[in-house]
């Protein structure tokens, strides 16, 4: 390893690695325990000190889990809703972000302020009005009630606008126009490829947020077969009788697709994409 001092230049190189490694340990520890707890019965989990190594109750926990909730079906719904949500959000927010960033039109600032405004209100305050809308539309108990509204994500459009503003110069667009490229062509062939890191980030975050969202399904879903995972796992909780082992097993399994997704998209995000196009 070459000599690589950190920003301050004071700390010796190996200390920096040590700190990063210690950080990794801290980040992972609770995660590790989640998997450990998934393999123990609830009596063992609730004891102190908690179990440190894997036990042998995993199959039993799975059994309890699948008996109490239609787990695999809920997992399927979670996947479906999250995928649909991600695709729609990427599409709508990239188009919208591009529009906000590089064009001027009437009402632009007001609209953006309104959109950002929705980010400033806590989501649980929307439970009742959202319920009213879904009822009026007849979307209760249907997955589309979960992924369609979310596509108008204030976060998504904010992120996209930021990225477009900083990574795509106006001159590039002008040049493409002069070359005779159609507007939609510019969007599809020039802007989108340049937005890849942002798209990857937004995809990841949207998927995760849809995956872990429980307020939306709580409002909209009425049948246990239609629940997504967070709601299904919550229904394992009882005021006095929670099956902690099964719950942890479910939570652990629920995390795996996200890990997989991260591994897949991290190449987009992190393996670097140069902005050669700028030249």
């Amino acid at each position, binding site marked *: 390893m070459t000599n*690589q*001092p950190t*920003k301050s230049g004071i700390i010796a190189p190996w200390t*920096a690695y040590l700190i*990063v490694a210690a*950080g*990794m340990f801290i*980040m992972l*520890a609770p*995660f590790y*325990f*989640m998997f450990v*707890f998934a393999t123990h019965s609830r009596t063992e989990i609730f004891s*102190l*000190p*908690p179990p440190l190594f894997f036990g042998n109750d995993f199959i039993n926990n799975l059994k309890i889990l699948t008996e109490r909730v239609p787990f695999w079906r809920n997992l399927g719904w979670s996947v479906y809703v999250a995928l649909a949500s991600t695709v729609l959000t990427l599409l*709508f*927010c990239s*188009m*919208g972000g591009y*529009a*906000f960033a590089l*064009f001027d039109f009437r009402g632009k600032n007001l609209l953006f302020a*309104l959109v950002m405004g*929705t*980010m*400033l*209100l*806590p989501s649980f*305050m929307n439970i*009742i*009005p959202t319920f009213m*809308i879904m009822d009026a539309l007849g979307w209760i108990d249907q997955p589309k009630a979960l992924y369609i*509204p979310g*596509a*108008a994500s204030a976060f998504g*459009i*904010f*992120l996209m606008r*930021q990225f477009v*503003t*900083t990574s795509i110069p106006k001159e590039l667009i002008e040049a493409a126009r002069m070359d005779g490229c159609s*507007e*939609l*062509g510019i*969007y599809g062939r020039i802007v989108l490829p340049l937005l890849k*890191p942002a798209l990857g980030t937004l995809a*990841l975050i949207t998927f*995760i947020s849809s995956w*872990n969202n429980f307020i939306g399904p709580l409002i909209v879903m009425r049948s246990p077969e239609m629940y997504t995972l967070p709601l299904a*796992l919550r229904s394992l909780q009882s005021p006095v009788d929670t099956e902690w082992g099964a*719950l*942890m097993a479910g*939570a652990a399994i629920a*995390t795996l697709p996200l890990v997989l997704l*991260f591994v897949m998209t991290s*190449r987009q*995000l*992190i393996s670097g994409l140069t*902005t050669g196009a700028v030249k």
Partner: protein
Amino acid sequence: MKLPAILRLSPKAVPYVLLSPFVFLFLVFGLFPLLFSLYLAFQSWEPTSGLNSMSFVGFDNFVFALKDEWFWKSLKNTGWLALAAGVPQHLIAIPLAYFIHTSFRRLRNTVVGVYFMPYITSSVAIAILFSSLFSTDFGLINIGIKTLSAIPGMASLMPASPIDWMNDADNIKPAIAVLVFWRYVGFNVVLYLAALQTIPDDIYEAATMDGASRVQKFLYITLPSLKPMIFFAVTLSVIGGLQLFEEPFILTGGRGGSDQAGMTTAIYLYRMAFDFNDFGAASAMSWLLFIVIAALTLITNRAFRPRSSAST
């Protein structure tokens, strides 16, 4: 290949076309709840009696909120937590992202992945895990502290008896701050790392040839280039911090903790609406919070004032 005439839009029409799906969804699903909430702020409403039981009370809810001890307490808690959890996140995430960007090649994905794990973990799991970790007599955090005080020289820095994290009003706030930090530092690392990718290597090469040191490169190339992303990430932290709900909810069982030390404004709102069944006051408070967040977001905006051109 030329697109059919109908799809060839003029530059003037493009923004409208591109934005229309988003705006349409927004008007239906975003605007209505917003307006409903605004309307509700001026009503007195106990929800289980049905929509017809709303009665107009003018500014009564706002006056009540502004006079309410607990509302101000919650704002103070929120401010403290937003700062205590938010500031370290960025102070650590930026150098960390830079370090990972420059020092890890093959292990890069793994390292970032590990830091990102907490963000993925669901609240249900975190609730159980952290109440176990923060337990007074047997929680691993206190055990860790005890072990650290066994190291000679560290004993004076460590507290003498096990810290009661969950029940003591003074300790619940740091516990929440730790949880929030743990959960989001990786998220910010990912954001900054994505931004670091967009800085072309040749600028660094040119600087190296000019004899710039690593620190100088960081301070004069990296940081300024990261400014837009810092603005973005900090804005998110401001908004997220002021709306802090999940983490205090998890650690205090939805109540806000002893002496409401862990009660952020969002939690108080939630309790007003769903525990104390006073939806009107809850809406009024959410709008007061909105004003606070909007003000602070504007200030952040002014402070950073992102560059309009994209040249790095």
